[in-house]
């Protein structure tokens, strides 16, 4: 067979394989972005690496924010609460905690606690750690 023929066959094999990979779903990079809202705020939680180990987490609050402080309360659902993580403001409406420990795989829950002049609000984010 000529070179052209081999290229065509290889192309078909490659495309079928690629199609299969897309369908069966490739593994994600571990970065998770989650959106939710409380009564007063629209909140996004970005977990840089939802894998066992330490990860940075960032909270973004949309719009004109009156928030004075943000802290994170990670809990593993099988009854394992972690120490709370204070965040530092890194930009308008953006708060970051560097080393949050996710000790095990499984279902976690990160509660974002927002403090502002009107009080405290809690937004719960389910998080699957792999």
């Amino acid at each position, binding site marked *: *067979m000529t070179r*052209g*023929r081999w290229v*065509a*066959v290889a*192309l*078909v*094999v490659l*495309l*079928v394989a*690629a*199609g*299969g990979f*897309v*369908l*069966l*779903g490739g593994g994600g990079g571990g970065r*998770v*972005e*989650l*959106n*939710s*809202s409380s009564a007063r705020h*629209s909140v*996004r939680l970005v977990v840089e690496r939802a894998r066992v180990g330490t990860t940075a987490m960032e909270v973004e609050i*949309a719009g004109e924010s009156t928030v004075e402080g943000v802290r994170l*309360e990670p*809990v593993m*659902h*099988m*009854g*394992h*609460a972690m120490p709370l993580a204070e965040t530092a403001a890194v930009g308008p409406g953006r708060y970051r905690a560097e080393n949050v420990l996710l000790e*095990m*795989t*499984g*279902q976690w*829950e990160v*509660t974002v606690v927002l403090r502002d002049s009107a009080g405290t609000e*809690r937004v*719960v*984010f*389910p998080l*699957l750690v*792999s």
Partner: protein
Amino acid sequence: MRITATALVAFLLLLCGAPQAFADGAMAGADIHVAQTLGARELTVVLRRVDAVPGPLRVNVITHAGSQPGRLSLRLVPTGVGSVSGPRTESATSVELRDRPGSHDATLTVSLPGPQELVIDNTARIPFVVPVSVLSPAERVTYGGFVAAGVLLFVSLVVSVKARRSWLALVPGGGVVAALAVAVTAALLSASTPAPPVPGEDIDATVDNVLDPYSTRPQSTVDESRPPVNVLVSVQDGVELTLRLVDGASGRPVDDLLIHDSALAHLLIVPPSGALRHLHPVRVAPGEYRVHLDAPEPGYHAVSVEIARRGGGVQLLRSATGFTLPGTPRPAVPTTETVRAEGGSPTTITARMSEKRDLQPWLGMVGHLIIVGPLPEEPEVGRAAASSATWSHVHHMAPLTRGGAGGLPDETVAAYGPEVSFTHTFTSPGRYRAWIQAEREYSLMTKPVEIVVAPGKEPR
């Protein structure tokens, strides 16, 4: 050559687009029945299966005998956390409750699949999940493979007619064989593919895992069970009872209750007189449930709550404290019947609750039997119940309707009974107090019974 490439690209695009296209299709799920003690009313709220999103959610509010007429506001709030941000459209309506008991209908609009809350009268917040029926990866490959085989077959026909060199037709021809092989293999494999964890039941639901349940693979090495729960009981103004459910390990509010036996929480209160109250507190905030006590009795009340957590079975929480309302306790209500039983072997207790077959299923069951005991010598039934070794809740199940959609029989079907029977094994001899509950003409009947258990003769 160009045709082949174009067709293959088209095939690939088709495959990529496939999951979304299928996800928007038919909806899964079943009707949800939730008992709610809201104010002075005992309601059964039925959320009908959602067939399309966006689409209507039909809600039936069933009232009981003696229920006050009035208007209830209903609001549907999408609460799901998801990777896509965007406006969340709420839907609101109201339902007019007549003075006659029965079903009252309303329709809300579901704008987003996944976790939702139905808010009733700005007080009760019922969490539930609107699921989407999604094809498994193996099913998707099967569909994709057959579609590709069809497209390639057409391509090979065109190529064999148009192309000058005959071997060119072999390329799409080979593709047909490959695509068919993939499709058939996937079809054979799809039967053995394990079902993914169900969002809202096995794992916490998010918009993402509802849209793609196969993205969360079951993790066999992880113990999915969750800790036991503590219940904290407090009373405000002598009539409003608040239950706070806290995790037995982390101490955080427990907000992952499943609807089991048609309620989020089954509250049993034994007052000094022994007139049992079986109520269904409404969820007002995460981990916080509230119930209104109609005409409360003075004195000490024993309390237990039956719940089921996500990723765990049903648990009975017995409040160690109970609660006390000021005043002199009333004397105990005498039981109307005494049943004799023998310890250590199954005893069947039967009661005739009506004259004809007109019992209605309450909480999905034809009858409920609640037993506390063995009772110590103590005139106040509440105190005696609190120090009893066992509290049990036995059901008389409604027969499953053949060919039905798998949902519970509706409360509006009055076709059961008139006898209800329960089988239970008593471990210890002694005197027990029991209550048999059944519904007739939209009215809950509670029959107090005394059970005297003799020591068993069978060797254990």
